[in-house]
């Protein structure tokens, strides 16, 4: 410790009586301590003491899942701050937005951070899903974690959608009106589902109360739990996917055939693909510092980007919600605009059948596609068929979203964004 640094301070503090009681291990100096620091810390122990080099390669995972997690964390912190000021009332919510902007210290910046982080989280969860698909990472033994991921994708959309209503401006009101109308197109359950969501037939105080409760309690609680399980399963399923899963090399005794006259440590019971029983130890490095420092770096980058966006761009806030003056066109949030575009062709097929089929297909994917080839590599040649089908679906969704976002004007008519529409003239 020649120069003072946070690590140096920590080393000094960890040597004191109090410090030792808190941290148990100081900055690790030996490989033993590098293992201990991971295992003995609550925050770190969900990660292995050693990690495969392949998992550290940024060009493999791009850290997309971790970025989503960090955004979720930023959203939680800023969301709690916003809750200190927000009132879920149709007469007060909009005024509270104005007060955040005009009289609450840094209120607007916090709201901006929440807004941009929310949009980014939807985007990064989608990108994460694409990464996992294109690397075939949903295959055995990670099938169920993929299903959890699809669930988290839906939770993310739900969180963003419920939060969209809360400012109670025109944008919020009509986006939710359009969005819940799409839900209403489902046969049999559609109208009931819409009524259940809104607490009525139109967006009003009941809807605001419900969306608020869903947004701040129900969905974050479920989502947070699922994230915990999702991350835990990453560890239990053998870390990030990588080529040539070693499962077939492992010989394990079925649990029922274990001798019963001795006790077992966890290591002996652990099965399958945990790192300890994986490949050649030379492929692995200590998580501290190689993984942890990279994670910390990524967190700083994500924070910097979100704060940067929040300082220079304000979250939109339109006029107070007005149920009798719909904007033309009234548009759903951007991630539903592909769906809205589909609905404009056919409410039933576009609003119900296609999205239901897509979500079902996504959830069942690992059980349908059971071939083991091409795991752990981007665009593996062995997976050309699956990748092609997925790419076509993805391109269609992106194209529909772009059309719905940029190319649709009043009455959902075709407009070209870089040309102002000609004024409507009528000769007399």
């Amino acid at each position, binding site marked *: 410790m020649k120069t003072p640094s946070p690590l140096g301070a920590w080393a000094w503090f960890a040597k004191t009586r109090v410090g030792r009681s808190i941290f148990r291990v100081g900055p690790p100096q030996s490989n033993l301590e590098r293992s201990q620091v991971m295992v003995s810390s609550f925050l770190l122990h969900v990660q292995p003491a050693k990690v495969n080099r392949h998992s550290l390669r940024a060009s493999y995972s791009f850290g997309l899942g971790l970025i989503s997690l960090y955004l979720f964390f930023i959203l939680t912190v800023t969301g709690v701050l916003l809750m200190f000021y927000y009132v879920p009332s149709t007469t007060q919510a909009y005024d509270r937005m104005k007060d955040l902007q*005009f009289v609450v210290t840094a209120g*607007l*910046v916090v709201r901006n951070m929440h807004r941009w982080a929310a949009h980014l989280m939807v985007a990064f969860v989608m990108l994460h899903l694409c990464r996992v698909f294109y690397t075939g990472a949903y295959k055995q033994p990670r099938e169920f974690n993929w299903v959890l991921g699809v669930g988290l994708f839906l939770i993310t959309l739900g969180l963003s959608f419920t939060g969209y209503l809360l400012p109670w401006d025109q944008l919020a009101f009509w986006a939710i009106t359009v969005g819940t109308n799409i839900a209403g197109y489902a046969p049999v359950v559609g109208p009931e589902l819409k009524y259940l969501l809104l607490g009525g037939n139109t967006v009003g105080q009941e809807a605001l109360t419900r969306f608020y409760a869903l947004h701040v309690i129900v969905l974050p609680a479920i989502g947070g739990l699922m994230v915990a399980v999702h991350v835990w399963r990453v560890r239990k399923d053998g870390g990030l996917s990588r080529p040539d899963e070693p499962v077939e090399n492992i010989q394990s005794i079925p649990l029922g055939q274990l001798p019963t006259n001795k006790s077992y440590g966890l290591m002996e019971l652990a099965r399958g693909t945990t790192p300890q029983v994986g490949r050649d130890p030379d492929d692995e*490095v200590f998580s501290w510092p190689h993984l942890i420092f*990279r994670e*910390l770096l990524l967190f700083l980058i994500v924070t*910097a980007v979100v704060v940067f966006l929040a*300082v220079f761009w304000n979250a939109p806030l339109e*006029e107070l919600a007005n149920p009798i003056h719909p904007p033309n066109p009234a548009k759903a949030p951007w991630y539903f605009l592909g769906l809205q575009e589909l609905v404009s062709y056919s409410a039933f097929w576009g609003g119900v059948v296609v999205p239901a089929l897509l979500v079902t297909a996504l959830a069942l994917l690992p059980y349908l596609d059971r071939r083991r080839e091409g795991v752990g590599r981007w665009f593996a040649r062995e997976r050309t068929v699956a990748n092609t089908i997925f790419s076509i679906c993805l391109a269609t969704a992106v194209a529909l979203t772009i059309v719905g976002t940029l190319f649709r004007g009043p009455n959902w008519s075709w407009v070209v964004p870089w040309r102002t529409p000609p004024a409507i003239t009528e000769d*007399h």
Partner: protein
Amino acid sequence: MQKESVRKFYGWFTALGLLVGLLVGLGYYRDEYRPWKDYQHRFIKEEIRRATTPEQRMLAQSTPVQVRQILLPELNRVDRCTTCHLAVEDPTYGGYPQPLAYHPLHDEHPFDKFGCTICHRGQGRATTVEDAHGNVPHWDAPMLPLKYIQASCGQCHESSDNPAAPELARGEQLFETVGCRGCHKLGGVGGIVGPELDKVGARRSPDWLKQHFVEPSAVTPGSGMPPQKFSEPDVEAIVLFMLSQTGADLPGFYASMKVIPSAAQGQRLFQQKGCIGCHSLGGQGGKVGPPLDDVGLRRKPEWIVQHFRDPQAVSPGSVMPRFGFTDSEARALTDFLLHQREQKAVLSIPALMGPVDRGREVFRKYGCAGCHGPAGKGGVPNPNAKTAQLVPALTYVADGYTNAELKKLIVNGQREIVALDPHRPPPPLYMPAWGSTIKEAEVDDLIAYLFSLKPKNEDAGF
């Protein structure tokens, strides 16, 4: 090897940590630096300069720099205008440049009860110049230009009985005479050809309204409304009246202005209670009691009020009955009578007019002139109508229709107007069905009036 790869992180941590810190600092600085603080410092400096005693100086120096606001729970408003406009209540700041100017003539509308935005509009909650003055996207109520400020009086006061708002009264009078109600509903009365106007003042900007009167189709493509030939002051007056129609549902204290004693309320009472049965105004009415045109000259207001309460107390031997007017009603009637000496009020007194005169009133009341022209002389364009692209004049209606035919036309209207060129858009103006709006007796009077329009010296024969 391992040490090397770790060391490079420290540089990145430092750089990114600094970047995050810098961005947070920047965000905080922009949040902390607000122009209103400059204005408050300027005000405090001025107060210190003016201080004559050490105590005053102490007081001025200890003025806190903080957001100031007027809470108006009844109006559901928070006006923070006084955060910058600190001296609005201090007459010694008269003539100062904004934002430190004094607001004159404000005694009857105390700030703590009215705030600022209920009259001036703008965004009361905002604390920056552009946002507060409301000239920003997504804010519907930018500040009302001062020349239209009388429009705000109309939210609480009857247009016709506020002497402080003559332009508003003139605008209303124009509205009622040029026939806007022929096509537009206001307060539930009027036609259905054009949109209702009850909230038009909150929806439309002054510029839009003005443009709309001069050349309607310029701001509303395809509008069938004929361009209005107003003089410049008349356009401003009627725009001002339109701006007063905000449809704001104000709570009791403010709305009560419309029901407290006023000349307009007195006029309504005068008609309802049948005063005209015994007294006359403008030569019309009964002869049992004295004419009331100049009663305001002959009697003091207190005398008239007392007379309404108990006629015999101030006028022994009077045969006028005691009507049991409430105090407020007696004051309203008195106010009305006092106004008679200033202006010859045009009273509609249906019971004593002939059918033709009553019909003329009906013609005016429902805005028929809006399409058929003053006195039914026509001339209002109706593009692509077969009738020379004009709304037909009514002058010779007596020749073309029987009484029953005309009645049917008025009651049922005529939705389809025959087009000159069937390939072009149909004529925008049409005859609404008035059956549910105009009472049957009124229709009869109206027909009598329309038949009377035919010039007397012309022969019916061809």
